[in-house]
């Protein structure tokens, strides 16, 4: 078993035009910086990207948007990216906006091998268009399908050679579910350690879900809104 690759270029070597990719992160928090840079560099196009947000104009998925590499975005909130809003309003970009909890759970269902679930979110709104409505205890629910992807790319704090992952603070966000949902899952980590270094009790994503892992470099960890307490 050898999951360790040397860098992002090697990890994404078989990602080609037109695939669907899940990318972990919430805003710029915990995004796979090295892999995004490699996707930009490789110039792959017509991507469908599943990610809660679309980055900002000059970082994260915003870098792929600027180069028009994304055909379709599946997200819940895209408000921090002017280029995204421009492409959307101009009709240059397909967008599927999904309630955040529905998005998280659709990914989680894919991770758990469950094809669909029912949620009250979006009932009576345009999100409900075309969806099956079912009542449980007199309350209406929408049927939502599991969301799969050809590749999932996540960034963890620590990982080992067997693919076990540990996340730090709020960077777990969508990444743990995505890591488990990808057909092929790529994990970039701040620190790659030998098996045994991570306490099994502390593993957030078990290695079975992770196909390729590498230690990333030069993390910027950009902060979107630097809010500070006075005094």
């Amino acid at each position, binding site marked *: 078993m050898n999951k360790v690759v040397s860098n992002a270029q090697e990890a994404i070597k078989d990602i080609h035009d037109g695939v669907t990719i899940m990318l972990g992160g*919430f*805003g*710029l*928090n*915990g995004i796979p910086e090295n892999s995004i840079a490699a996707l930009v560099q490789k110039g792959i196009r017509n991507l469908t990207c599943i990610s*809660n947000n679309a980055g900002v104009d000059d970082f994260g998925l915003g870098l792929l948007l600027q180069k028009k590499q994304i055909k379709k975005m599946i*997200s*819940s*909130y*895209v*408000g*921090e990216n002017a280029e995204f*809003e421009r492409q*959307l*309003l101009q009709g240059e970009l397909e*967008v599927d*906006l999904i*309630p*955040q*909890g*529905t998005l*998280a*759970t659709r*990914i*989680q269902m894919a991770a758990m091998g469950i094809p669909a679930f029912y*949620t*009250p*979110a*979006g*009932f*009576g*709104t*345009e*999100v409900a268009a075309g969806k099956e409505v079912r009542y449980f205890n007199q309350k209406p629910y929408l049927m939502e399908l599991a969301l799969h992807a050809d590749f999932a790319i996540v960034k963890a*704090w620590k990982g080992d050679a067997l693919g076990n992952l540990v996340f*730090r*603070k*709020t*960077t*777990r*966000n*969508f*990444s*743990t*579910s995505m890591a488990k949902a990808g057909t092929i899952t790529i994990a970039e980590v701040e620190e790659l350690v030998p098996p045994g270094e991570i306490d099994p009790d502390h593993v*957030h994503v078990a290695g079975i879900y992770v196909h390729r892992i590498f230690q990333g470099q030069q993390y910027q*960890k*950009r*902060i*979107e*809104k*630097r*809010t*500070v*307490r006075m005094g």
Partner: protein
Amino acid sequence: MALDKYGIAKRIARELQDGMYVNLGIGIPTLVANYVPEAITVIFQSENGILGMGPYPAEAEIDPDLINAGKETVTLIKGAALFDSAESFGMIRAGKIDLTVLGAMEVSENGDIANWKIPGKMVKGMGGAMDLVASAKNIIVAMMHTNPKGESKLLPACTLPLTGLRCVKKIVTDLAVLEITPKGFLLKEKAPGVSVEEIKAKTLGRLVCPANVPDMHI
């Protein structure tokens, strides 16, 4: 005089009770955390995966791996817990959150809310708002009574794409506290110095005005 956004937040803080788990939306709702009465303990949830969100960090405490749902740097209180987004919305959907405070562009007299899209103009996405309003036990809307053009945001029916149906319980604006009832917006309190006539003039939906409307305590 009409309240400013801090006044609205202070009034909503009076709704907090000891032991509540509370989710605050972006904007005015976020300010509510600054006015929690000292005698009570309230735990703030942030839907990106925090229970026990604390105040903004001091400069030296800033951690880029720790943000809230508004993408702001934050801290954790002692006893905080972290989890992923799927679990976070699980606790929201399962009704564990006692109070949700969020902003709105429009609220209708039957409690519908619109706050995520202006067709052709603004498409930011709904984020977690649809999940929150569909499952929260108690929803308070914090907003200005009128939009920047001076038009009422309290309407007979929402004109913008909806976020959720019949979910709002209470609205705190710069002018008034109102409850959603089967007869429409019930005027419960008015901002000190604001007349009932002004509130009537700026409320397009059905407004029920009791004989005596007390001033808000802030």
